[in-house]
C-alpha cells in the first residue's frame, strides 16, 4: 500500500468486506469487517434494560436463559393446588414443560427447548410477562 501510494483499499465479495487504510502518521492497519450478521452466540441479545441477567449469561457460556415467546401471565403450576412444572435444581430437556403463559385464556404450556438444570427462576407466579422476557436460568447439560 505504501509502495502503491494508496491510502485506502476496500474489497467486498459474498458479504465479506476487507478494508485497508493508511493514514499518514499511522502504520498500515488492516481492518476486517463482516457485512453479514455474525451468528448469534448461544444466547441471543436481550434488551438490556428489561433483562439485566442477560449480561451475566454472556459471560458464562455454561448458563443459558429460557425466554417467554409471548405476552401474557406467568404461572409455575397448572393450578394453584398443583405442583410446579419445575423448580430450581430440576433437570429439563427439550420437551419439558417449564411454565404456563396465559394470554386471552389460552393456557400456553411452554417447552424448555433446551437440556440442562434450572438454576434460577427470574419471575414470580402471576407476573405479567413481556415478549422475550427471561423466565429461567439454566446450567447447560
Amino acid at each position, binding site marked *: 500500500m505504501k509502495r502503491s501510494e494508496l491510502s485506502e483499499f476496500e474489497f467486498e465479495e459474498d458479504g465479506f468486506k476487507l478494508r485497508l487504510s493508511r493514514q499518514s502518521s499511522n502504520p498500515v492497519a488492516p481492518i476486517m469487517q463482516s457485512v453479514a450478521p455474525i451468528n448469534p452466540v448461544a444466547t441471543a441479545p436481550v434488551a438490556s434494560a428489561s433483562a439485566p441477567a442477560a449480561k451475566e449469561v454472556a459471560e458464562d457460556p455454561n448458563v443459558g436463559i429460557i*425466554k417467554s*415467546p*409471548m*405476552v*401474557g*401471565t406467568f*404461572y409455575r403450576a*397448572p*393450578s*394453584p*393446588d*398443583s405442583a410446579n412444572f419445575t423448580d430450581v435444581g430440576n433437570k429439563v430437556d427439550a420437551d419439558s*414443560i417449564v411454565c404456563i403463559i*396465559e*394470554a*386471552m*385464556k*389460552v*393456557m*400456553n*404450556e*411452554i*417447552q424448555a*427447548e433446551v437440556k440442562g438444570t434450572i438454576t434460577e427462576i427470574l419471575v414470580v407466579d*402471576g*407476573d*405479567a410477562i413481556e415478549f422475550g422476557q427471561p423466565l429461567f436460568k439454566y446450567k447447560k447439560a
Partner: protein
Amino acid sequence: MIKKLITQNQPVEVDPTEVAILKTLIESNAYVSGSALAKSIGISRTTIHTKMDQLKSAGFKINAISNRGYCLEKLPQNLLPQLLHTYGQALSKDFQLFFYPSVDSTNLEAERLFSNGAKTPFAVFTHKQTAGKGRLGRKWHSQANKNLYCSIMFSPNTPPEKLQSFTLWAGIEVCRSLKALIPSLDLKIKWPNDLYCNGKKVSGILTEAKIDSDRMHTIILGLGLNINSTQKSFPKEIQSIATSLRAETHQSYDMNALSIEIIQATVRAYNKCIESNDDESLSDAWDAFDYLRDRTISLTENGKKISGLALGINVYGALQLKANDGTIRSIHSGDVTLKR
C-alpha cells in the same frame, strides 16, 4: 408378577352401517323399505334387520311397518355416537370424532389420544366429565347427558402469534352459530370467551396449547355448553350465575346437531387464523357480542386489583381498560368482575 391394572378408556366404536342407515332415514324423512335400504347401502335385508335392532337398543325410536318399511319416529336429543357420526359427515373427511360415555376431562382425553397417535384435527365428546376443568384448575360442573362437553384439537405447527386471537374468534363463531339457530337468544361474550345469556354463563371455553419459541405444536379448545339442563338442576352455588339454552328458551335441543355446529364454528375460527384471513376485523366482529363494553369492571393484574371502564378489545384481542386515572391499559389475561 405385577398385574397391569390401568385400563385405557376406549372410545365407543361406531358401526358405519348403522350410520349409513341413519343417514338414509333422516334424509328421506319417511318410510324406507328394507329392500331399498339394503340396496342403497349394499348389504342384505337380514343385516338391515339386525342393525335396526341394534339402533333401537341404542335409543333410537324406529317404526317398522310391513309393506312400508322403516321410519325414524323421533330423533333423540341425547348425544348418541351413531347420530353424531351421521351429522359429522358434514365435516371434512380428515376430521375424526371420538365419543366416550365418561371421561375425566375431554381436554385431558384429547391429549392422551394425541400422544397415542391420533391424527388431528379431531374432537372428543362425552356424556359425562368426572373432572371437568376450567381456568387454573377450577371445576366445570358437568351434569351427565344434558350438556355438551367437548374438546377440539389441532396441530398448527405455526408461529404462536398466528393463533393469538383464535379463542376470541371461536367465541364469536360459536355465538353466530347459536344465534342462527335460536335468533331470540340474548347472547354475549364476556372477555375473553365466556358466553353469557341474560347475565348468566351458558358456556365456557378453556384452551390449552403447547408451544416453544417459534412454533405452536398443538392446541386444544375445550368447550362446555349448557344445553338441556334445567335451571333447578344446577348445583345451588351456581344456580344464580349459570343458565342453559333450555332454561333461556323453554325448549330442548338436539345435542348431536349442536355438537357438529360447534365443531364447524371452531374450525371456521381456526382457519381464519391459519389462513391469516383478515376480511373481517376482530374488533368489529367482537362489538356485536361484547358483554363488557362501557361497563365498569375490575380485575387482578400482577396481584393488584385494578378497575375501570371496558372499551372493547384491540387488534390482538387484548381487553382495553380505561383505568380510573385515565390511562388505557391492555389486558391479556385475568378474571373480569362486573361492577353492578
